Every structure is written in C-alpha cells, then in structure tokens.
C-alpha cells in the first residue's frame, strides 16, 4: 500500500490511545521507546490493585480572559479507581474552530488530562483531587 500517512504519523497518539489498556510493565517499557512517548511516568508502587472502578465524569473548560470565549477541552466519562493515590487519564479530540469551515469537525489535536487523587474523607467518602 502506498502509505502517505506513515511518515506523518504521530506515534505518541497511539500510546495515548492504548495506554489505558496496557499493564504497568508494558506501559513503562513503552515510555522508553522514544522521547515523544511522553514523558509518561509510571509509578509501579502506587498502582491500584483490584479496587472497584467507578464512573467518573470530567469536564475541562478553558475560559479566555474577560469571558471572550469558552472552549470545552474534555467532556467525557471514564471508569476510574477512586482510591487515594490512584488516578486516571482522560483524552478527547478537540473540534476544529468553526463547524462550517472547509476543515473536518475534528482538529486532529487531542487534549489529555491526568487526574490524581490524594485522599478520601472517611465520613462522606469524598475524594480530594491532588493534581
């Protein structure tokens, strides 16, 4: 096949997409493949073990100074372990600016957000977000 796509493939996108399905060891090895295979830090010691996963909805809005504009970067649900010390990745494609431009509705740019939990309040089970 003539593959015009190969040379401009951004490999980090693949890791970003499959990271949630990889075991910690494979992900750590993958993070050593090249420099762009971000900067992913794998902390084996703090990986959650067989805890209950819960549906977490996250919305990340970016507001321009003076409310000149509001962009939704991420709005999605993932199953996460809510144990203190755990966390998860959220990824979403950004739409291109202007729905009726000649471009496609998606921009080809992906917003990534890593959420980390630091502790759970025992009396009501609320989780504090660390980062």
């Amino acid at each position: 096949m003539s593959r015009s796509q190969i040379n401009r493939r951004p490999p980090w996108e693949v890791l970003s997409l499959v990271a949630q399905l990889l075991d910690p060891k494979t992900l750590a090895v993958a993070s050593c493949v090249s420099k762009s295979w971000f900067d992913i830090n794998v902390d084996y010691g703090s990986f959650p073990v067989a805890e209950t996963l819960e549906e977490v909805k996250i919305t990340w809005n970016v507001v321009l100074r003076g409310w000149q504009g509001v962009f939704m970067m991420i709005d999605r649900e993932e199953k996460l372990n809510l144990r203190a010390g755990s966390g998860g990745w959220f990824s979403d494609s950004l739409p291109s600016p202007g729905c009726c431009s000649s471009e496609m509705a998606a921009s080809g740019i992906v917003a990534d957000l890593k959420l980390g939990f630091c502790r759970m309040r025992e009396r009501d089970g609320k989780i504090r977000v660390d980062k």
Partner: protein
Amino acid sequence: MSTAATADASSSGDTTEGSVRLLTLQSEDGEVFEVKETIATQSVTIKGMVDDDCATSTIPVCNVTGRTLAMVIEWWNKHEIGAVSNEKELKEWESQFDTIDDKSDRDDVYDLLMAANYLNIPTLLDCCTSAVAEAIKGKSTDEMREFFDIKSDFDEKEEDALRKENQWAFEN
C-alpha cells in the same frame, strides 16, 4: 471492499436515495464516497456536523486515505442495525480487525485506529486499541520500536538513565 464509492464528487453532498439522505465524504487522497446518513452518523464527529446542519456539502475527511475510509464504511455497514443476524456473527467478522499477525495487519489496524480517533467512532476505536494493546503486550523496547517503525532518538546516556528509572519494568 463493498463501499458506495462514486467517481465524481457532487458540489452538494446532501443527496437522497429513496427516502434515505446520502452524505458525500471525500478522503484526503480525493476518493469520494456516498454514504447513508444513518450509517455515517456512527461517527460522533459527522453526527455533530449533521445535527448542526453543517453536512450539506462534501465533507472532507482530511486525515484518512480512501483505502482506510473504505474500511471504515465497511465497518459502519456491518454495524448498521439489522446488518447481521446476531452478535456472534458480528464478533466473528470483527475478529479480522482485532488481531495483528504481520506488518500489513498492523498498518491496517493503525490506520483504522487513527481514523476512528479522528472521526470519533467509539466501537471501532475500542476494537483497534485493544488489538494494538494486545500486540505490544510483553514486547521489549526494541520490539516496540520495530512494531511502530520508530527510531530511537535517545543517546546512550539518556536511554541508560531512563532504563534505570524504570528498572523494575525491565527485570524478568
């Protein structure tokens, strides 16, 4: 591939076949496909355009080649309600996409994965990400580089430092 490709692109991509509205999609290499709206809207991206009334002209699918778009349309056709008689038949058909035995399979799955991500097709994205994750599971760094056709951009010192940092992952 059993797709509804047409030779010429209409300036208006909003046509009908019977009572079914057709959308015209154009791949990055210029191939034009007419697809039923009810099928193409399996893409969340295209559904958004339809809902916003922005799909009345030819829709350029800029990051996807005609060959890959044909596979995407085949996926849509197979996942249309009533296209297959049961779930088992669908799973058997999907299995051609969820295993990677050689570089040709890898490239097809990789192209589909990027297209599914771009067009936001959750079912196809799940299938392809599972296939890639399964294929690289347990591979060494060098094997992953070979799998993805990636050249190492670390110098020896940098790679040693990174391996030390993740030493636990390289121990048997």
